[in-house]
């Protein structure tokens, strides 16, 4: 069962919720935490360890100049502009290649061979008998975010309960993350920004047919805009985390609030029960 913690807007507290939830639930069952925010992964900050690492690579073309007739077929086919065929050589821009494999098929002279390039890695930490952390990390300067997320998902796909920390936004990286999700927990904040981006995420999840629940972070006395929206869209608000300087400081220092304060351990435990019940309703 995969539960995705997401938000639309960045910085609303996805990692706060996923890290504490994973930590607390692992006291009673086997949990895998998966950091799918591979451009800026932060779950590891809360669970320091020495990870086992694996490279994530993609297949790209390499040109055999001796074989190439410079016919232009590959350059004409590539929709991403990764291959430019000149009269005497072929220019390949690896950063633009999506690894679709089409160029190998169109080359009439067998002049392209498959080469592999590294786009990032995954890091695996067995933190305890019941808690494993799998982090995807995109190589700096690369743009193939979704391939690294896919590698994380492939690694955790057999695990019984996976809590995934999603990337911000709702474009390809988010879609790749929620592909097998039983439930999406949307973390928002009671501001016009929070509401706007929550709405974008809710619309995407509706299209994908994934049920959602909401956690309001930095809650104060002005949560109505979120509560009204959730009421209209039948989204259960499962928890509120108050706007509190002390909580912010614990979190900023890289410490789990559920580890620092037993009251928060209990709250995340209750949240975990509710989330598993909502997610279980679907599987």
């Amino acid at each position: 069962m995969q539960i995705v913690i997401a938000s639309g807007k960045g910085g609303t507290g996805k990692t706060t919720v996923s890290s504490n939830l994973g930590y607390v639930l692992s006291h009673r069952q086997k949990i895998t935490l998966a950091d799918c925010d591979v451009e800026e992964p932060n779950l590891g900050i809360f669970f320091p360890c020495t990870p086992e690492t694996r490279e994530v690579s993609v297949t790209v073309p390499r040109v055999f100049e001796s074989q190439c007739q410079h016919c232009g077929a590959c350059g004409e086919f590539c929709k991403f502009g990764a291959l430019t065929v000149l009269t005497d050589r072929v220019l390949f821009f690896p950063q633009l290649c999506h690894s679709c494999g089409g160029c190998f098929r169109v080359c009439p002279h067998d002049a392209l061979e498959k080469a592999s390039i590294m786009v990032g890695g995954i890091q695996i930490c067995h933190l305890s008998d019941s808690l494993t952390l799998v982090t995807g990390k995109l190589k700096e300067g690369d743009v193939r975010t979704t391939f690294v997320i896919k590698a994380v998902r492939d690694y955790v796909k057999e695990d019984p309960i996976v809590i995934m920390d999603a990337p911000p936004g709702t474009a390809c990286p988010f879609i790749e993350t929620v592909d097998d999700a039983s439930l999406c927990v949307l973390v928002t904040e009671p501001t016009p920004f929070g509401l706007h981006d929550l709405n974008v995420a809710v619309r995407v999840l509706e299209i994908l047919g994934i049920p959602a629940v909401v956690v309001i972070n930095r809650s104060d006395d002005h949560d109505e805009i979120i509560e009204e929206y959730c009421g209209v869209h039948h989204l259960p608000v499962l928890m509120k985390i108050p706007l509190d300087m002390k909580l912010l400081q614990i979190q900023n220092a890289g410490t789990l609030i559920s580890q620092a304060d037993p009251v928060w351990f209990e709250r995340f435990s209750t949240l975990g029960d509710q989330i598993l019940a909502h997610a279980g309703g679907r599987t």
Partner: protein
Amino acid sequence: MIQVAVVSGKGGTGKTILTASLAHLLPGEKVLIDADVDAANLALLLSPEDYSEEEFRGMDQAVIDPGLCTECSLCADACNFDAIVQSGDIFEVVPYRCEGCGTCTLVCPEEAVHMQKRLTGMIHYARSHAGPLLYGSLMPGAGNSGLLVHRLRQEARLRHPDASLTLIDGPPGIGCPLISTITGIQVAVLVTEPSKSAQSDLMRLITICRSFKVRMFLIVNRCDVNSDITDEIIQMADKKDISVLGTIPYDLNVLDATRRGIPVTQIEGAASEAIHQIAKNLSGELLRL
């Protein structure tokens, strides 16, 4: 024209609030772009009017003609994005997984697959007191955010050739839309906050900006939430030769102004004061470029 992007790596550090404030405070003819096309919020602080919009078409999408398809599954096997699935007797393209590469059209023996244009998002134009504003929105589930950012910047150049400053509210992360945002700009204003997460994200962002040869300036938002980390960040910036434009204290007036839909610099308070000074510092730096 000078192009400046406000970026952060980590989301929620205050990019949009800072961009809106700078839009009002920096001198000269400006054009404003919200490049966070997944979650465009800049318009919420600029009270724009005179809206118009135009369709944005990204990559094409594959479509299978069920009348011609013989269910051989060659297209599904060839697709590296798992975008072709069998449902019942027919093969279908899952639109949000299709990258538009066209490989499936190469392998189909019946010519049952063709590529078709698709509406990926919208480009929005509006006018604000701080200058013309361009922002994008993606259709739910659509990709191509990097391409949309590229288009927004292109349109801004074409429509406002006389602007002396392009100010871009950047996306979070370091992937496709961020790279599209900082390609060819002169200045990146990095907004961070004193947390271990933001600090880690900032380091990755600096590596990228450096490889794109972008001049960097740094701002530490909510600096007093953890002054030890703030000090660490400032020391790191010194070492890397990145000038610090200023620090902004934690101030609930920011929340109040955001809820009222105005930049915090239009009300009083400690954060407002700090951002006014930051704008002066940045303006001086831009003149020296």
